[in-house]
């Protein structure tokens, strides 16, 4: 098998490159959102697209998430393939009615007559001191809803390859980008047909003593935890879930069957977050394999505060995960 050349890039640039390539490939693909054109996007993901494709396909919208999301859904029902940028996923709360009550149900309610090939993407989770209204992790809210697909990549390669899959998918896809990941570096194949399928978790660090299960930026935290533990001779396996809906329980369960212990790590509020769902799945299906209760590490159950010291208190870090690991090892 011929191996494609690898390109070094960042999480942000990988997303940009993917959108650019797909707009070039398919005239039905267009992007819309707040300040994504002339202003180049709040996180600069869409930089350069407006000069290249013009205002017909790179659309600066008014600040009205329900309205422009609804327009995207209507357009998608006729076969266009909109990519909706949420300035932050926190703002997608305004568009929940359009996304959940409309987009997610179109295929079902029409009995298969219509599809919504739409991607809703944007930064999800805490950035830096954006405080309570701009720091939500929304993926768990969406992963609750049948009809949506929800992905949360943790690596540069997955950001590129999973966005390809998202844009090609005929169903509405929520693609969440933790803002803390935008600057991480990595490689992607020099192949615009490259893609990463949904519904496949991956093992990013093999181990035998405990499974650290997470997604998005928490996978990076888990990798750092595994590094720490290895210094103590503890072998942790890092399971990067990356696709929440559909969820690849096989890979998670296989890891737990091997390690007999699991800690699930997620940035969302601990109570009712998606990590709680993963923990319960492990408890239900791997009961005989487990040597200890499945533990969770989630964000503190408080609105995200502004002061950096308080914000850092809320977001799970290496120390928080290590503490839970030590409780069951």
């Amino acid at each position: 098998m011929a191996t494609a050349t690898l390109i070094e890039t960042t999480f942000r640039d990988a997303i940009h490159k993917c959108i650019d390539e797909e707009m070039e490939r398919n005239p039905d693909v267009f992007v819309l959102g707040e300040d994504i054109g002339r202003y180049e996007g709040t996180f600069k993901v869409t930089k350069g697209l407006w000069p290249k494709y013009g205002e017909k396909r790179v659309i600066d919208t008014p600040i009205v998430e329900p309205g422009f999301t609804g327009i995207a859904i209507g357009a998608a029902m006729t076969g266009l393939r909109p990519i909706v940028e949420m300035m932050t996923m926190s703002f997608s709360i305004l568009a929940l009615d359009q996304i959940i009550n409309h987009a997610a149900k179109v295929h079902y309610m029409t009995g298969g007559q219509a599809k919504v090939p739409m991607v809703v993407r944007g930064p999800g989770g805490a950035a830096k001191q954006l405080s309570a209204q701009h720091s939500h992790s929304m993926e768990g809210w969406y992963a609750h809803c049948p009809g949506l697909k929800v992905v949360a990549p943790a690596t540069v390669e997955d950001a590129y390859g999973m966005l390809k899959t998202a844009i090609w998918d005929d169903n509405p896809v929520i693609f969440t980008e933790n803002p803390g990941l935008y600057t991480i570096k990595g490689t992607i194949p020099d192949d615009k047909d490259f893609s990463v399928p949904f519904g496949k978790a991956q093992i990013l660090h093999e181990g035998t003593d405990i499974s650290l299960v997470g997604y998005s930026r928490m996978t990076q935290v888990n990798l750092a935890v595994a590094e720490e533990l290895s210094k103590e001779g503890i072998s942790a396996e890092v399971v990067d879930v990356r696709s929440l809906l559909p969820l690849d329980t096989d890979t998670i369960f296989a890891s737990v069957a091997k390690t007999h212990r699991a800690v699930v790590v997620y940035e969302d509020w601990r109570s009712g977050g998606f990590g709680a769902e993963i923990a319960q799945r492990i408890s239900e299906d791997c009961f005989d394999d487990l040597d200890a209760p499945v533990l969770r590490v989630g964000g503190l159950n408080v609105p995200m505060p502004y002061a950096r010291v308080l914000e850092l208190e809320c977001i799970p870090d290496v120390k928080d995960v290590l503490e839970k690991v030590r409780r069951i090892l």
Partner: protein
Amino acid sequence: MAKSANLEHPQTPAQLEEFYRQMVFIRRFEEKCNLAYRQGKAGGYLHVYIGMEATAIGWNAALKPGWDYVITAYRDHAQPLLMGADPVKVMAEIMGRQGGYSHGKGGSMHIYDIEHNFYGGWGIVGGHVAMGAGLAFAAKYREEDRVAVCYLGDGASNAGVFFETLNMASLWDLPVIFVIENNEFAMGTRLEYHASDTHLYKRGEPFGIKSERVDGMDLFTTLEDAKRIVDWVRTNQRPYLVEVMNYRFAGHGAADNDRQLYRTKEEEDENMKRDPLARLRKYLVDKKICSDEKLEAVEEEISDQVEKIYEAADASPFPDPHEVYDHVYSDMAPEAGH
């Protein structure tokens, strides 16, 4: 406001008879739906179009079949029937059967016939309005001369997303026509109790959208208004807002059994005089376009036709339980089990 209906009309006798057939058909179809509901053959929420028929017929006549887009809320039986939908599949959907357009997963509020460009069939008041503009957006994006007609009720005209959509439709020159079917009640709340200004057409004006109020109970003026406005939108590639004054004779939904909670019998009787069906019938007889006997025969024929539609729909089986997982996604099954 409405011009007099007492005009010399451009329609041929054959066209007029066809419009009468359409109107009788919708009336009988909807009466059958109400009956099916009372007999337990249809469930959930069911909203009939009785009294408002002239609006959908007049606007449908102005559209290019198979080309222009239509979307509406949950009072959604008339539009697809007029646009070429199979009435058996519409009735079967209302009855929750496998043979329905959505195989029994939509019901009365969620009728779709995408093949004929009828995009539903939506249950969240105001929620579909942005999607209606999205249909027009798609037409413009593809440089096609389609127009999108987006029906909404007077109740939906208060929704925030409606105003957001008016702004974008104007800003982006979308060929969408917002048809506010002002039947004077947002469910059971009278217009004066829910709208700060009851002249709903004015809601388009701040956005630079051409806006007007028309009579929706008179077929002839509706035919004229709709053609004029659809042609204007197609030519000028701009949105339009029309407030269509009509009145629903039935309750909000089939479960609305006590209309006197929010309106008087006298008011209803007064509005019954605007009945588009009775008026069209009288016109056809008075002008000697059709004889009374001829129209009676048409009515009988359509009643039989609706009966056969109902029987055919009733013969369709209920969905098989395993179908519950179909069409959640286009390419995969959701997780099974409780």
